[in-house]
């Protein structure tokens, strides 16, 4: 089981959190093509290794935050805020 470090509550166990998937995906303009809109909604890198993703401390403060995590080892490499650039 992973332990995540919520920027507001500190280190907590994985079941307190909900993963929101790949983070900081830029939404295209509404006038974009079906191709671009489909890409935005569904198509993901899904990397084996380092992944930037968003989590919510659902059973805690309820806040969203970003992490950099390895999908292969589950190691959490960095935690950063929703508005921040990845380290």
């Amino acid at each position, binding site marked *: *089981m*992973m332990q995540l470090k919520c920027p507001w509550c500190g280190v907590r*166990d*994985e*079941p307190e959190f*909900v*993963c929101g*998937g790949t983070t900081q995906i830029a939404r295209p303009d509404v006038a974009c093509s*079906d*191709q671009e*809109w*489909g*890409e935005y*909604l*569904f*198509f*993901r*890198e*899904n*990397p*084996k290794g380092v*992944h930037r*993703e968003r*989590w919510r401390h659902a059973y805690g403060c309820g806040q969203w935050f970003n992490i950099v995590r390895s*999908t*292969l*080892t*589950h190691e959490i490499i960095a935690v950063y805020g929703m508005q921040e650039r990845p380290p």
Partner: protein
Amino acid sequence: MRDTKQKYSVWTLLQGAASRHRQWTPAWRDAQPKPAYDVIIVGGGGHGLATAYYLAKNHGLTNVAVLERGWIGGGNTGRNTTIVRSNYLYPESARLYDFSLKLYENLSQALNFNIMLSQRGLIVLAHSRHDLESMSRWANAMRMNGVDADLLTREQVRHLAPALDMSSNARYPILGGLTQARAGTARHDAVAWGYARGASALGVDIVQNCEVRGFIEEAGAIVGVDTSLGRVRAGKVGIAAAGHSSVLAKLAGFKLPVTSYALQAMVSEPVKPMLNAVVLSAAIGSYISQSDKGEMVIGGGLDLFPSYAQRGSFSVMQDTLAGTLALFPSFSRLPLLRQWAGIVDVVRDSSPIIGRTPLKNLYINCGWGTGGFKAIPVGGWTFAHLLATGKDHELAEPFQLDRFNTGRLIDEAAGAGIAH
């Protein structure tokens, strides 16, 4: 080379008894890659091996190789809960999965290999009036699609699975259920080996410990693969790599609407027969059956974060087991023997992708998510049709990659019967 085309029968078994079983030869031929093939299948799981078998059997294409990074059937084919069923909601899915179940029903004979299909029936439990209502809709949809389905009363559920907690103060009260009597289990390793043996006997090369590390592209078309055993050229390349589909797609230079998650399962120590059905509860997110060896096989929900780690979180295991014990209190003394996870390729509408990729001569069969095992025969059948003829099989037509751009999704997220 020793003959690997031995036919299995009662007669050969008796011959074996007379010869102290010295006559048996390997079931299939472990090959090294040749410089070129007509078709290369990347991934030696159930879907890849079935594709190779049907390429040879249905289309006469035998200059085919299956390249497997590890050993055949060592990925999700060896990690699932062996359940086969076709209780889907939409006509497109019902056609697809019921065709698969029908192939399973004759697979032991077709492959001359006992896949130990046991159509013991699947029971989906209803824990509320709302469950009962959605189940009647589900059963009606299945019947309209020509798939067998029956609603069960509480008493019928009790009769079919007496170990369930049917008491009035049960944590998850059981009001009834939905059953598909033709559903059941099949021996997963036998399915992989049966297809491998069938394909190998028809001339297909099965290459293990051969990792695909890149695709060779010439003039905008894929003409082969770079592997850990060198370059292999091919007329067409088909990817059947489940949870690792995105990794291969990235090597080829395109993206998929797939996220890889760990899906875990576990077995208890073996006990005497006590559960003669597959029991599934969407509320709990677990499904339970008893293997032929006597182990209770328990499947859980997804670990809901992207993972390639092939191991599940303890918290998900705990939830799964807590729910299972609430359904079957008598299991509380059973020690667990093993727990594991497979990496499944989940797409947003929980329906597969069997079709072309943005690259010429490169095809993909993926997106089966948490339910790939039941679909092995039809996945192989339709993918082989596409690779051999260049045209979509009519069953696979709705399941194309472009549906994520056109919006023509086939949303089986609820129809799959479990809240993945």
